[in-house]
């Protein structure tokens, strides 16, 4: 497991350049450009289970979800940052990517430190020191635990909608 460490204000253009936003949508298309303008060594070396540490305001900028989809699909175990931009944080929930706001853990970490993350219990251990972070509310965890928002929506639709033909679903406002 490797830890990738970055600074403050890592924006969506650094995580996934805007010029590819309308031509790359699948994990295979996204991966080669992941973090392209931030760290060209990332895409070729990232492995399943790796962790990212970052400073303040991680993921600021565009609402594009390729950075989140990409990080989830390459197997990033968690992004631990001092803070996140809100659309990015929401996208993390929607894709089932674990995003943790824990400034003290970020500040404590230095290269080579051993890391353990327990997202369910709200705990991170950095070099033997325990840090806790608030667990998400149940209604939000339900989305992440269903495997992301679309999986959650599919379950909801199956439960609540009778099998009607599409036309009967069109309500006039």
């Amino acid at each position, binding site marked *: 497991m490797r830890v990738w460490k970055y600074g403050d204000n890592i924006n*969506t253009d650094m995580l996934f350049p805007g*010029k590819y936003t*309308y031509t790359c949508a699948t994990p295979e298309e996204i991966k080669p450009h992941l973090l392209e303008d931030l760290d060209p060594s990332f895409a070729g070396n990232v492995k399943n289970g790796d962790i990212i540490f970052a400073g303040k305001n991680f993921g600021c900028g565009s*609402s594009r*979800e390729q950075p989140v989809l990409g990080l989830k699909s390459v197997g990033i175990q968690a992004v631990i940052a001092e803070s996140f*931009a809100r659309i990015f944080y929401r996208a993390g929930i*929607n894709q089932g990517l674990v995003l943790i706001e824990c400034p003290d853990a970020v500040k404590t970490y230095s290269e080579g430190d051993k890391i353990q993350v327990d997202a369910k219990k709200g705990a991170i251990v950095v070099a033997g020191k325990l840090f806790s972070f608030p667990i998400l509310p149940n209604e939000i965890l339900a989305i992440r635990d269903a495997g992301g928002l679309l999986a959650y*929506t599919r379950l909801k639709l199956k439960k609540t909608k009778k099998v009607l033909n599409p036309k009967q679903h069109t309500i006039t406002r």
Partner: protein
Amino acid sequence: MGKTFAEKILSKKSGVKDVASAGKTFAEKLLAKKAGLSHVVPGQIVTVKPDHLLTHDNTSAIIGKIQDELNEYGVVDPNLPVIVLDHVIPAANEKIASNHKKIREFVKKYKIKNFFDAGTGICHQVVLEKGFAVPGSLIVGSDSHTCSYGAVNSFSTGIDRTEAASILLTGETWLKVPETIRITLKGKLKKFVSAKDVILHIIGDISSSGANYCSIEFHGDIGQFSVSDRFTIANMGVEAGAKNTVFQVDDVTVGYLKKIGVKDYNPVWADPDASYLKELTYDISKISPVVACPHNVDNVKPVSELAGTEINQCLIGTCTNGRENDFRIAAEILKGKKVSPDIRLLILPASKTVFENCLKDGTIEILSNAGAIILPSGCGPCLGAHQGVLAPGERCLSTANRNFKGRMGCKESEIYLASPATVAASAIHGKITDPREVRK
């Protein structure tokens, strides 16, 4: 109605009003209304049905995620989506052309009512002009600058593609009630200082994460700002991390809505005794033209400190500053003058309506005579997709909203952000120039 222990203690011992009758912010009132609750508090998660869902060129990726569900359940309501093709128009390549085609087919198949094809305008301007953004409405969109509609008292905020896909099927989503920052603007702006300078100044002050997860309310001397100016300010709320940015409805708003034929709306505004996370006041009569330097929007400096910095391209327009008043101030500065031969000046009207209005009053002719290139109303150069991509080592001075590294298509280039007046003045000299120096 039964009260909790905490509410009873608070109202009895400290004289503090209970939660239900305490003053509320705009966000608290609007989200309570939309969630069908008597009141809500910051941090509470509510389920809401947005009045509209905005999507653009990313509609093809959105519907691609839910093909089976669309076949089975259909779109929840054909009035809900507002779809505008704007991000890469006219299509720059075969892949994008195919995406656009897929969206047009989807619109026909599901009888989507509100579709605007390439050339109508930039999505946010279209949502405003076509009257979808009305006071007291709730709009979400799969674009971060959806926060712009607070200019006309709408609660509007950006979401991702996956969430947009889910809302197409269900018509609802969840929102956390945000804390609110109250910003009071006092005084009158000086000539050649604009709304853009105000919002850049504020972001420079509070930082690009200074309003993370928060709602921003603008109070004070806002009567001097047109709806277009308010749109510029609200558009950039997200650059400080805000969830939404909002203005009160006043005579200026009412006049604008009347002009575009919007009649039915129910404005919402904060109570005078609402409680805020933070309250900030700015004396805007003291603000001078500013520039946001690479590569963060909060790296803001007075234009005087940057005067003489050589530039290669100038961009006036985009959803931030691409309306009639923006081009008129540029034309006032460029009238009878020529753009420096070392500069490409790009003009990007926010919509076809804006373009036509500027054509009628002679603004476009002045800009064209000065040497400007007039682009179709879209997002191309702003996100580095096409039409104005930079080369390594080049600098662009732009009225757009972001100057992130690589934003205009090349990570070895630099983007500086400023007002239309500053960009116009700089285009003449090929160097960053204080607009107050050009027209004395």
